[in-house]
């Protein structure tokens, strides 16, 4: 069972079964699958992403919530079985909050996030391609702001590489049970609203 979730799991050294050039080839294939999934999922599309934030299209939320639940339960099982390591990033609360806020503004203006932008540019979106140049400039600006940020921003609220079970004492399985319950209600409401919108539109078309 996946009950023990002490931070020692973070230290458990698991050697990946695939290394060297095989791993490099595997990463192209895995990336291609990810790119195809983003494209077919509809999130390599400006309108789909922007309309998520306008509550007119819930594709982004459906994909992300399902990926988090399915991915999370699997990685939890793999980690408990000693087959995968966790890769937790440091929760520098001020940096993460400010970064996510700036990212949110940028994502709506751009209409893509970095991953979906690459898939979109490859499927013909010219503005996604131009925005990739913006991403590279943004990365460079950050690199040259880094000394200041590392000194004044990142240390504020630095909690370390923590997980929700560590800071709350609530076990991971309980978090996933709660997430599944929330997702079930949210998805039910979304699907009902979408059926109603579709019915209204069909009515309008009929008239």
């Amino acid at each position, binding site marked *: 069972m996946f009950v023990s979730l002490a931070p020692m799991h973070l230290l458990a050294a698991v050697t990946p*079964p695939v290394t060297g050039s095989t791993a490099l080839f595997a990463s*192209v294939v*895995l*990336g291609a*699958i*990810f*790119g*195809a*999934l*983003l494209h*077919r*999922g509809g999130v390599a599309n400006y*309108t789909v992403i922007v309309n998520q934030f*306008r*509550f*007119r*299209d819930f594709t982004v939320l*459906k*994909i*992300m919530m*399902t990926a*988090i*639940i399915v*991915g999370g339960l*699997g*990685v939890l099982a*793999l980690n408990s079985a000693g087959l995968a390591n966790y890769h937790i*990033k440091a*929760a*520098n609360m001020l940096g993460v909050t*400010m970064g*996510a806020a*700036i990212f*949110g503004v*940028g*994502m*709506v203006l*751009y209409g893509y996030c*970095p*991953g*979906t932008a*690459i898939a*979109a540019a*490859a499927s013909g979106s010219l*503005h996604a391609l*131009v925005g*990739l140049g*913006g*991403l*590279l*400039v943004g990365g*460079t*600006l*950050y690199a040259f*702001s880094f000394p200041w940020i590392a000194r004044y921003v990142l240390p504020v609220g630095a909690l370390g590489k*923590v*997980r*929700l079970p560590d*800071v709350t004492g609530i076990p991971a399985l309980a978090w996933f049970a709660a997430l599944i319950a929330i997702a079930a209600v949210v998805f039910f409401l979304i699907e009902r609203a979408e059926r109603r919108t579709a019915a209204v539109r069909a009515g309008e078309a*009929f008239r």
Partner: protein
Amino acid sequence: MSTPVTKPGFLRQSRWNPYAVGAAIGVLSWIVFAVVDKPLGVTTSLTGLAGACAVPFLGAETVATNDYFKAHGFKWDYGMLFLGGIALGGLLSALISRSFRIEAVPSVWRERFGDSVVKRLAAAFLGGILAMFGARLADGCTSGNGISGSLQLAVGGWTFFLTLFAFGILTSLVLFGTRGSSKS
């Protein structure tokens, strides 16, 4: 009322069910964690590319002495090839489903801001700068923090996910208001 349409085969459908796509991305993350021993992410590798592309503009010396670029140098490693894979997958998916379209000004943007290509490209470029700066400050984007972080129940991942949505909603209100069409 409507003429019967033959549904194209699975590989030729331009859209797949979003829940199935989400579940497949979840399964993909199992493979990435177990096989490559890395989280699924995009912007960390993109930093190395940014450094490499900055060389002709800023000079090799300036880039090589920067501490952040030193820690995130350009390498043909797992992450960089993963980015190439995303482009390849997006292209193949679009070609196979015959949905490759050159798009400069999307309809939702045109309705609000007109059909100026320059205006849209400038907004995309500025948005890209902000998105990457924010993603680096938070140490991850929608993939690295939003999906990979959240699925590990990382405190940072969930903070990112929720804050991103809050600010995305606010920005879309400022940019687009509450009116307008929802067609995609």
